[in-house]
């Protein structure tokens, strides 16, 4: 046990070290640009997962909070005459907070319903906000779009580096929050909601507040990602800041790696975002969508629960069998108990109903 923990810890430190020195090893701007987008998507997918992965409520309108974060930073920089450089990075958390504050009433509305209705309402809210971005011209400049300050002192070779590290900080923050939620009593409540919300309510879990809190936390992270992204691409327009494909990408990443796990969405982003960028370069802007669609189908058909849960389940099964054997061997009375337990229970062993089996395999409650 302690050995595997040590192994895990070393592995994580190694990954962190690679992430930190990456721009030094591969200084080529073409590579670091892809790296910045990858880290941003890893953070967004982790943020999305804190709500959708843990509660089982699949939100498909998180592009709304990405867009709010992007516009919030653009508007702050414009109104306060912030010059290009490091200063706009300091406003990123504020942009995230603005997205989070907007998420309170919007999440409250969407979370009045469950399952498919919830999904539809999140999409509807997203399109309303996209329309507002087009039409609130005084605030957003409409379809003309908005420019962000350009850091003119940063040379071409250096330009990506600050964005990379700021994105990495946001990713680490998102991972820390995700880890804490997963291990806290609060997070256990969210997972209980995912499995059976009414039962969780009947066991004293504050379901309404828990769901909304998770929704707002995830909007905060996605909002910060939107802000960094806006600063990185230098100008924003309603259809790119409020982009429906953002949710397709983030959801696909989480599903590929494993919805509801800490590492899953990150792994999904690390695999998908560079692939997407590569395909865009190779085959052009339009064809990558075909490939994306194909990948979505492959993931849903072949790996419905994602890479991480599939591997973890194999591992825990192995561990459970091993520890059962150990306990049986260790003490006679314990082994008797296990034996009695088995004898009492054996006739109906493994009698999960087909629906439950299916639900478990699907790995979500849409």
């Amino acid at each position: 046990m302690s050995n595997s923990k040590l192994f895990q810890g070393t592995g994580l430190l190694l990954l962190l070290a690679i992430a930190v020195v990456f721009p030094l090893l591969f200084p080529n701007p073409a590579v670091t640009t892809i790296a910045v987008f990858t880290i941003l998507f890893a953070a967004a997918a982790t943020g999305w997962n804190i709500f959708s992965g843990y509660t089982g409520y699949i939100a498909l309108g998180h592009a709304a909070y990405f867009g709010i974060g992007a516009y919030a930073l653009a508007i702050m920089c414009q109104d306060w005459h912030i010059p290009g450089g490091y200063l706009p990075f300091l406003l990123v958390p504020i942009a995230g907070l603005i997205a989070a504050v907007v998420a309170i009433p919007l999440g409250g509305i969407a979370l009045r319903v469950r399952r498919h209705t919830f999904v539809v309402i999140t999409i509807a809210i997203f399109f309303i906000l996209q329309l507002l971005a087009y039409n609130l011209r005084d605030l957003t400049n409409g379809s003309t779009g908005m420019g962000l300050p350009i850091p003119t002192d940063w040379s071409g070779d250096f330009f990506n580096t600050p964005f990379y590290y700021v994105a990495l900080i946001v990713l680490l923050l998102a991972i820390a929050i995700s880890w804490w939620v997963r291990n806290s009593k609060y997070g256990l409540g969210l997972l209980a909601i995912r499995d059976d919300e009414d039962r969780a309510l009947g066991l004293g879990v504050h379901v309404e507040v828990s769901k909304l809190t998770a929704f707002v936390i995830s909007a905060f992270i996605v909002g910060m990602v939107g802000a960094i992204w806006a600063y990185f691409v230098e100008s924003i327009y309603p259809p790119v800041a409020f982009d429906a494909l953002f949710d397709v990408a983030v959801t696909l990443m989480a599903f590929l790696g494993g919805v509801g796990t800490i590492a899953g969405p990150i792994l999904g982003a690390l695999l998908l975002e560079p692939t997407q960028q590569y395909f865009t370069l190779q085959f052009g802007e339009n064809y990558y969508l075909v490939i994306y669609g194909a990948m979505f189908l492959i993931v849903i058909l072949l790996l419905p629960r994602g890479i991480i849960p599939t591997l973890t389940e194999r591992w825990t099964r192995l561990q459970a069998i091993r520890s059962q054997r150990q306990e049986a061997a260790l003490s006679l009375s314990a082994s008797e108990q296990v034996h009695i337990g088995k004898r009492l229970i054996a006739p109906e062993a493994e009698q999960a109903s087909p629906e439950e089996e299916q639900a478990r395999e699907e790995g979500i409650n849409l």
Partner: protein
Amino acid sequence: MSLLQVQEISKAFGGIRALDACSISIEQGSITGLIGPNGSGKTTLFNVITGYERADTGQIRFGDHIITNASPDKVFRLGIGRTFQLTRIFPRLTVLENMHVAVQRHDLKGLLSRWNATHEQQRALELLAFVNLTALKNMPAGNLSYGQRKLLEFALILIAEPRVILLDEPAGGVNPAMISYLTDRIRILNERGVTFLVVEHNMEFVMELCDRVIVMHRGTKIAEGSPAEVSANPTVLEAYLGD
């Protein structure tokens, strides 16, 4: 003095009166059986008491609290735990994680702490040992057999130390050896002061376990008494065999 008092509760689903001015009273420290033909309103009564359904009229009193139409989480926090006819556990959480869901969260600090904080973990492990599921603690609960799920659901409400436990068909579809094991567990808890209200069709189980039996028919109570009295009551026989 009665601990749980249901007074004149009515509940209709469309034109069907599931509960019709139903009044029952549960004594502190008793094991009360609730029997009656299918559709007589037993599960609806459970749902109304625990806040899963709203009563149309009437009042429910628990100790000093009036809990008519309180939300399920409030009813649970006041000390009424229940199991479901079709066992409801959290299939994708491990057995041990299931045990921790019902731990009371008194403040923000408790909420933000790790779910397996030590003293609670110890209590959860004790209870798993109590229902003989220790060996399966790291297994996803969805992998448990039907009988094991019943035991887990029973144990996971115990962690909150409820004063009253409502069991909805605990012996349904469970083999005889497991039933006697469950009977033992209920007796042990009852000796420690937990009050039980048990819906069950298995008469042998009811007659052996319960010290009082309430009979329901068409949404209301038609008889009450010791198991012997009730089984000799002509009204009860008529309700079961009559229609």
